């Protein structure tokens, strides 16, 4: 039985179609990255998975429960790590965890709190109020709070958004540990590197639906090819190179101050300038080619 099944899911806010016919199946034990630009419908999808948003149309099954009718049962077996920090900041670290252990009706609350403290590596800070913790510690606590009841499924909504690189790497290590222990994870992100490093499979979302889905390697092979050539130079020159490549049927995208010729291994002689920088095709190339958005 898949952990998550979404069929033809739709959700509008006035004239905006936030989710527009989204289909997605996540098998148990898989870490799936929901990769998409801001406004692609990732957070709305996450909210529908917890029953905090009701779809206008479509079907949702989570851990075998039909939502939104059985959302409460489903939530009992899933953990959620939100995008925004919503910890109780005046309360101690261990009280934050204990409150949620009780909300999840965990039988042995002290044991669950101990386990979560170890996950967050905050055992020695247990008696401190949350507002005395660093940003990284608070994020770890947020993750541990979502795991306090040992959920079968973990929803991570942009787990590292706005964090500095060091804290991000810390969290990635924690999430990777969960993944290797077999916890099913659905992680929304707009960070390419995050999806590439953590996800077994990536579903690229744009305009409220999944437009591509496979392992990062497969996505790169299918949508980016083996090599990408980055060309730098003045705008006139870039325009010239771009036109020539596109006329020859190659795909070209902007890459900051440069242009990137995607699938450069297919280029005929003279199409890729000799001073171009060659690199392997990447998930970033896939993301930009499919969504038309700049990568972060």
């Amino acid at each position: 039985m898949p952990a998550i099944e979404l069929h033809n899911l739709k959700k509008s806010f006035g004239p905006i179609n936030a989710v527009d016919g989204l289909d997605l199946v996540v098998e148990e034990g898989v870490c799936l990255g929901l990769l998409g630009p801001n406004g692609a419908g990732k957070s709305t999808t996450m909210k529908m998975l917890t029953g905090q948003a009701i779809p206008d149309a479509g079907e949702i099954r989570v851990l075998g429960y039909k939502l939104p009718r059985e959302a409460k049962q489903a939530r009992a077996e899933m953990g959620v790590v939100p995008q925004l920090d919503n910890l109780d900041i005046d309360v101690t670290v261990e009280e934050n965890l204990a409150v949620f252990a009780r909300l999840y009706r965990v039988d042995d609350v002290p044991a669950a709190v101990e386990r979560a403290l170890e996950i967050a590596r905050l055992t020695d800070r247990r008696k401190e109020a949350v507002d005395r913790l660093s940003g990284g510690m608070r994020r770890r606590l947020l993750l541990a709070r979502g795991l306090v009841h040992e959920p079968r499924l973990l929803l991570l909504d942009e787990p590292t958004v706005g964090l500095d690189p060091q804290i991000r790497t810390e969290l990635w290590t924690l999430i990777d540990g969960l993944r290797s222990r077999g916890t099913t994870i659905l992680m929304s992100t707009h960070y390419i590197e995050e999806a590439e490093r953590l996800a077994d499979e990536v579903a690229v979302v744009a305009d409220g639906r999944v437009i591509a889905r496979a392992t990062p390697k497969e996505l790169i092979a299918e949508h980016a090819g083996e090599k990408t050539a980055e060309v730098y130079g003045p705008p006139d020159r870039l325009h010239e190179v771009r036109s020539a490549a596109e006329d020859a049927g190659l795909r070209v995208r902007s890459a900051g101050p440069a242009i990137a010729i995607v699938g450069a291994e297919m280029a005929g002689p003279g199409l890729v300038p000799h001073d171009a920088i060659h690199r392997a095709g990447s998930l970033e190339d896939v993301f930009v080619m499919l969504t038309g958005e700049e990568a972060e």
Partner: protein
Amino acid sequence: MKSAEGARTVRRLEPAVILAVMGRELANFRTFWKSTAFTSTFEPIVYLLAFGLGLGSTLVADVDGIDYVQFVGTGLVATAVVFSSALPAMFGTFVKERFQRTYDAILAAPVDVEELVTAEMLWIGLRSAIFGCFPLIVTMFFGLEPEPTMLLVPIFAFVTALAFSAFGITMAASVSKIDQFNYVTTLVITPLFLVAGTFFPIDQLPQGFQIAAQFNPLYQLVQLVRDACFGLEPVDALRFLGLLILAFVLWRIAIRRMTRRLII
């Protein structure tokens, strides 16, 4: 990891869930209870000194045979109840929903809006029932004789606070900006407070106000508290029933409004 087969059955209004949500409130309350308790104790003293002793020693000696200090002191129970229920419910709910995103976190757990609202109301009701007794205790130092029927006062305060907390939660779920609470305070809370019979008997007011006061839950609470202190009357059962019905109706409205706010 738990299996699907081992999953607990969930149903409506689970006591364990309601207690857990209240436990969260308690954990937070422990961080600021001193200031709240100080205000709740000090305020009735100030009112008693200003109105009770001030007016009582100069203009009004007694009202219907009740010493004026005790008349005001017993009336202040209703004041304490409304200010410790409606206002925290309005501001607390709005802040937790909009700024702290606390309800997003709670509703991601197996808790539904009905349980959330019920727990918040019960917590505020319990707090108000305790704070509502403070003016009574203070008035005892001004000569109010303890009576066994006074033990009913926390129950009266609790039920009234449930109604006002539901009202506050409903308002929080209805406004888009926190400063819109000024309208609620000015147009609803203050008038209710002024025509509750706390500082003067309402039979001094024009007849229209006297009739309107009958629909004022604060007035009914003031009467219940005074009767619990100076002698209960059969009509008090009706007053209490009215407050219970009001609390129930406002509870359902609060759930409906919060559901519309929280579940998109």
